[in-house]
């Protein structure tokens, strides 16, 4: 710091002056290009251009480091004085994302001009990512040569992050995320991407059966006048009908009969399994204070049938809420262009992998609930994924290193740069 005044910009050793200037310039240039290009979303070219680009980038990085590692610029870029402003610049962009809702069209002129609602696809974001990759690459090589096991944790963390940034950036244009609407007993081989464009797939899917397993519905007590849920000691009174008797608010409830799938017949409900059948229950409600007992039916209703509330007295009613899904799954038959034919079930958290595609269960016709004959699947093709995973596992190992070895004992004074 003592000779800071006499040192010219860019000369060794760098201070935060150089580091901050570069980071600020990158952000400024990035936002300027973004504004000038009219807010169009930037895309990196797909295969094989991204692969070529990646190889050229890696080559340049290794080459520059090999020949100029003593040069003040390379030394400077490999120091914390460049790293901190870069990390802060990146943090600044992420903070913007933290405040501006992402992936929606915004009407705010500033947000539109600088692409703030699609930040990950803007110039400043991509440029600062590129800069971080350069820094991470240099700092990795700097601590890798000469090799020293003490630097293993350092390598895992920095190279792991490098790999994740590198492969997600290059892979973003090769990744396909498509949504497919499957109707029961129909064969579908088309899907739509996020922009709504229809894509023909190298495979077809026939939905054999869509199935929802529901939790038992919950009941609650509402005020007849306001229709609001009654609270007891400040807690909403919601109870699941998975037991035969329980207390709810000041009442005791006994369930005489529960029908998971039913239709109304006269004043009562009977078992029925038809589209639109809904859960219902016959209950006996006792008021312990005045010992009055009333009994009646409640039902949550469906897209066909209206719900049935049970009036307890002139103030309160018992109502059944719509059942919530416990799990939903689709039994499907997949035919691939390569000649495979597979019968399988996809479920939330249990996707299926075939020919480089992963098939996820995402949604259904929520209006119809368990009677939905539509299953919405997501199909993902992401050839760069293995590289991302390697990066993730390196960083996990790096985290374990941090945890085990802790802060360097000398406080970092050994390799100050």
């Amino acid at each position, binding site marked *: 710091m003592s000779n800071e005044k006499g040192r010219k910009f860019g000369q060794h050793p760098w201070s935060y002056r150089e580091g901050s200037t570069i980071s600020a310039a990158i952000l400024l240039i990035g936002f300027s290009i973004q504004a000038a290009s009219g807010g169009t979303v930037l895309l990196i070219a797909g295969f094989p251009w991204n692969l070529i680009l990646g190889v050229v980038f890696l080559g340049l990085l290794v080459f520059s480091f090999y020949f100029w590692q003593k040069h003040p610029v390379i030394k400077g870029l490999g120091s914390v004085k460049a790293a*901190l402003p870069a990390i802060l610049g990146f943090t600044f962009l*992420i903070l913007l994302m933290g405040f501006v809702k992402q992936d929606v069209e915004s009407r705010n002129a500033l947000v539109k001009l600088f692409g703030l609602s699609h930040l990950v696809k803007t110039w400043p974001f991509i440029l600062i990512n590129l800069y971080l990759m350069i820094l991470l690459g240099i700092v990795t090589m700097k601590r890798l040569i000469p090799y020293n096991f003490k630097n293993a944790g350092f390598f895992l963390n920095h190279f792991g992050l490098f790999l994740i940034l590198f492969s997600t950036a290059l892979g973003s244009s090769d990744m396909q995320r498509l949504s497919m609407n499957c109707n029961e007993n129909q064969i579908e081989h088309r899907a739509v991407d996020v922009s709504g464009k229809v894509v023909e797939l190298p495979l077809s899917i026939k939905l054999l059966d869509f199935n929802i397993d529901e939790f038992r519905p919950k009941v609650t007590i509402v005020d007849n006048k306001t229709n609001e849920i009654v609270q007891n000691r400040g807690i909403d009174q919601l109870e699941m009908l998975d037991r035969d008797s329980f207390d709810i608010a000041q009442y005791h409830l006994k369930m005489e009969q529960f029908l998971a799938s039913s239709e109304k017949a006269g004043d009562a409900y009977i078992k029925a399994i038809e589209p639109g059948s809904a859960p219902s229950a016959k209950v006996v409600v006792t008021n312990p204070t005045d010992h009055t007992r009333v009994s009646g039916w409640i039902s949550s209703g469906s897209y066909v049938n209206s719900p049935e509330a049970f009036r307890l007295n002139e103030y309160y009613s018992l109502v059944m809420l719509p059942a919530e899904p416990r799990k939903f799954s689709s039994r499907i038959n997949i035919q691939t262009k390569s000649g495979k034919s597979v019968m399988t079930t996809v479920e939330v*958290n249990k996707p299926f992998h075939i020919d480089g595609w992963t098939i996820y269960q995402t949604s259904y016709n929520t209006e119809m609930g368990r009677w939905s004959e539509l299953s919405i699947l997501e199909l993902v093709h992401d050839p760069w994924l293995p590289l991302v995973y390697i990066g993730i596992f390196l960083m996990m190992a790096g985290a374990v290193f941090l945890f085990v070895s802790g802060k360097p004992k000398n406080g970092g004074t050994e390799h100050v740069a």
Partner: protein
Amino acid sequence: MEGQNMWLDFPIYASVAIVCWLAASGLFLSSGKKLMNQMAAGLSFAGTAFLLVFITILWVNIQRPPMRTLGETRLWYAVFLSGIGLVSYLRWKYKWLVSYSLGLAMVFLIINLNHPETYDKTLMPALQSPWFIPHVIVYIFAYAMLGASSLIALRNLFFVPTERTIKGPIQMADNLVYLGFSFLTLGLLFGALWAKEAWGHYWTWDPKETWAFITWMFYLVYIHYRFRHPSEHKKAMAVLAVSFAILLICWFGVNYLPSAQNSVHVYSE
């Protein structure tokens, strides 16, 4: 217990824990006697144990891990903070740190007393995954560690230390940050692997993810700053204090930010 909403009993458990912890803090701060300190340690353990009993009964009662709603996660923060305070006392004998973390743990319980929980047994399909428990526990542990490190920063900002007296506390802050940061990293990466399995993409910049990432970045700044400027203690403590503010947004604030509507992570309350 049949048919009983466990949260109705929460005030009893919370009051016992708070009384134990108040007594423990009082003993820790007022006396230097060994016996008194041992009693204080015992009391703070008793408070934590009592809360763990409540969590266990709640877990059995709602038939799913109590890690979904904001109120449920506050219970875990209270357990971890008081636990970390006690362990760090046993390990390093920092009495003020136990008292601070017990104080913070009490704040979480008091918030829960003022915002009673709803009673919910359902867990949406995406959350029914073997990743769920490790992901949440790792995060909560990380946040509790980082929270504890920030207490040190706040203390040092108010009770201006000398070069000599700051050595111990700042070492402790470093240890907690390295520990907390490594867990936060694991939490983010577990989350990424899980998201890939459940939603088809490892990172979607969902508001909660974004804010967890921002928190991570600030502690990353602290680590690099400390590495390069090992003797600039005051500035390092300022970075740590700012990081804590970010961490608090991540804990509480995200749900209220305009950017956070429709997040899978926004807890139902």
